């Protein structure tokens, strides 16, 4: 007889609860702490960031969920009083949006090619894309840097956007998706006399709508979070995206940093809440590297 095991399921549930708290804590704390006034922040965390700033510094660190008094003052000073952060934020958007749009567009055409025509040579090229996708920045940034220099686009957003547009990640993922479309659909369209472009546009793309969305989310978060590329390719402090700049906020403005950190994670969290199902489907479809 098989034993029923309500006990172990209870343990699992408790474990999941513990993990949930650990996973949510940093995000929630960042969010709630962004509504504290600078003086409250200083009295809670003054010990930690006390290298500059002055004012009252507490003897103990005081990790708090709920502010004593909810205030939007940090947001006001970060977003309205000085345009500084807005400029960085805008930089982030200007870098990330073109990469997402064009990477997905170029990848969808390439993925169609990898799906529609197979053969030793093409599979070899595809495998090469996979290897390239797996290369860390330490390898790819040197070639990117050299090309940017030759083209004279170093220190401009283009030095990040152009390599980003051609990054092989979405090609890989979209090909995985498209290869699941029943071949009979394509065959039928061909018999009806559709051109390749029509098959791609009218048969293939509509089938991958959710895939396109999930890949766009994945690409977005990857570049929204970028640090390595701007550090090397953008020397100019004014053109840095907020992801790099956040860590440079002066230690006297910790409250402001919490608020800007919250503002920075809002777009990706909204995308997550809206597209979670697609995202999960997108991640799950990767399956394995081969094939």
């Amino acid at each position, binding site marked *: 007889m098989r034993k029923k095991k309500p006990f172990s399921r209870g343990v699992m549930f408790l474990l999941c609860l513990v993990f949930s708290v650990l996973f949510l804590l940093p995000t929630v704390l960042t969010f709630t702490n962004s509504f504290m006034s600078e003086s409250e922040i200083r009295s809670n965390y003054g010990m930690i960031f006390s290298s500059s700033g002055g004012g009252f510094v507490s003897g103990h660190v005081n990790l708090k969920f709920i502010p004593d008094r909810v205030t939007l003052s940090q947001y006001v000073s970060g977003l309205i009083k000085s345009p500084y952060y807005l400029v960085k934020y805008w930089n982030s958007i200007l870098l990330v949006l073109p990469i997402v749009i064009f990477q997905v567009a170029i990848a969808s055409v390439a993925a169609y090619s990898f799906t529609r025509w197979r053969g030793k040579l093409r599979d070899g090229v595809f495998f090469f894309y996979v290897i390239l996708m797996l290369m860390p920045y330490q390898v790819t940034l*040197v070639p990117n840097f050299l090309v940017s220099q030759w083209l004279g686009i170093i220190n401009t957003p283009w030095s990040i956007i152009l390599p980003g547009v051609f990054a092989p990640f979405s090609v890989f993922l979209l090909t995985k998706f498209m290869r699941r479309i029943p071949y009979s659909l394509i065959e039928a369209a061909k018999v009806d006399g559709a051109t390749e472009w029509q098959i791609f546009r009218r048969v293939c793309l509509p089938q991958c709508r959710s895939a396109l969305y999930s890949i766009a989310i994945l690409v977005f978060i990857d570049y929204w979070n970028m640090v390595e590329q701007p550090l090397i390719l953008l020397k100019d402090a004014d053109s840095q995206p907020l992801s790099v700049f956040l860590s440079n906020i002066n230690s006297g403005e910790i409250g402001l940093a919490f608020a800007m950190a919250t503002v920075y994670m809002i777009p990706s969290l909204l995308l997550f809440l809206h597209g979670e199902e697609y995202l999960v489907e997108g991640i799950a479809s990767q399956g394995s590297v081969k094939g």
Partner: protein
Amino acid sequence: MKERRREKRHNRLRDLAASLCFLSPSLLGVSVFFILPFGVVVYYSLIDGVGSRNFVLFDNFRKLLGNSAFLLAGKNTLLFSAIAVPLAVVLSLLLAVMLEARIPGKSSFRTFFLSPMMVPVASVVLIWQVLFSYNGSVNEWLGFAGSARIDWLQSDWNIYVVVLLFLWKNLGYFMILFMAGLANIPKELLEVADVEGASESYKFFAIKLRYLSPTVLFVTILSLINSFKVFREVYLLTGDYPLGRLYMLQHFMNNTFRSFDYQKLSAAAVIMALVMVVLIALLFKIEDWFGKDVEG
């Protein structure tokens, strides 16, 4: 006969042209921004100065392998991967198995576990600093428990703080991959095992893990790649010049970029590319061996 063969060849040519049409935007970009310059990188790694035609073959590599900063960075990066990758694989598999059991609130748990991947690291490093500074919360809690304070970020412990951040960020993603893998295991097989009276642990190790081997490989590769990217977390947490164990390969690259030493940069990039290719090939071999009697 001849007609048909000619027609066949004609079709093949047309297919080739069409496939190239669709592939060319991507292939062109990849060639210009990755492949061709990488060829130049290989070339630079073999000569003794930009503009020189003097092949020195392995001199640059020999110099690099004698460079203490590079060796330290390489050692640290490998150490980090060696700690973080197995933990990531095991823990994310654990999460997936837990969510696979029928527990209440499963989909909320999935959302919670996955949410960190959508939070930019830059946004949460502040909290990490609040928690792990010398005067931070974790030490405060340790104090309540009667234990001595640890200087988390400024001592050899700092690598574990970053491992924690790495796991926090990546586990959800890997968990989804494992959940998909678990869902693909043929149900009949598990039912047969039940009828035969197999134990839970037998079912897990002999059946599920076998079928999961491609996923295990994939998660291992992904977490290996991501562990090479952990510079991001380290930089945001501790800046350009971290202490001891957190000096990563990307720090070495950044500093070399600053000095425009192309020979050093190129040699380092080539070595890392080779190491990656060898590692990935090795993992493929292991997966072949491990999953050979499972189709797929």
